[in-house]
């Protein structure tokens, strides 16, 4: 089953998004919150992200949801720290964080591939709220 990593500059945001996604996904979907940097300040830490990516990967791959700006750069750095085989099935979804995480976790519950789970997250981009 595809795992999900939620990356935010804020640990609280990452935990909150994970809580919302957990409520809607099957319990078998691994959703890892990865927010903030070591001293509790706002930021993203490539080492922490790398560990989250490894933990979330059961062998079927990982879809990564990111919040803003350097979250993407830190994720690219984390990917470079992994070996080629570990990196192969990890996809960053170009999607809004909360909506994307919920779409991805429900899709992952259905046992879909990493590309299908990422596509579900990205489908949230076009959603209008009103």
């Amino acid at each position, binding site marked *: 089953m595809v795992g999900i990593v939620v990356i935010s500059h804020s640990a609280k945001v990452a935990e909150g998004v994970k809580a*919302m996604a957990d*409520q*809607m*996904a*099957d319990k078998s979907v691994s959703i890892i919150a990865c927010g903030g940097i070591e001293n509790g300040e706002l930021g993203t830490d490539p080492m922490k992200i790398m560990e989250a990516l490894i933990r979330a990967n059961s062998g079927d791959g990982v879809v990564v949801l990111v919040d803003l700006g350097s979250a993407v750069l830190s994720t690219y750095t984390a990917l470079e720290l992994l070996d080629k085989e570990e990196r192969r099935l990890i996809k960053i979804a170009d999607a809004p964080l909360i*909506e994307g995480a*919920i*779409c991805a976790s*429900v*899709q992952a*519950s*259905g046992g*879909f591939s990493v590309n299908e789970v990422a596509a*579900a997250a990205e*489908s*949230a981009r076009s*959603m*209008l*709220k009103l």
Partner: protein
Amino acid sequence: MVQENMVLTNELGLHARPASALTKIALKYKSNVTLQGNGKTVDAKSIIMVMTMGVKGGCPLIVIADGPDELECMAAIQDLVENKFYEE
């Protein structure tokens, strides 16, 4: 193609957990599944669209399934709705 007119008998309607339960069932089948309610028509396989419908408890919901396993799919959705999404 099969169509069923249902009524949501659970208190909260298609809020987060019931919506995800319905979407997860729709995703299990090959058939296309469309929901109509609250003046909107959406793809049941998209959790975000199902939640955005805003169908409340007591409101009608039309379910349309179209594909090779449409009957099994419809039966599963009917079971979920009739049992109040197994929540109450």
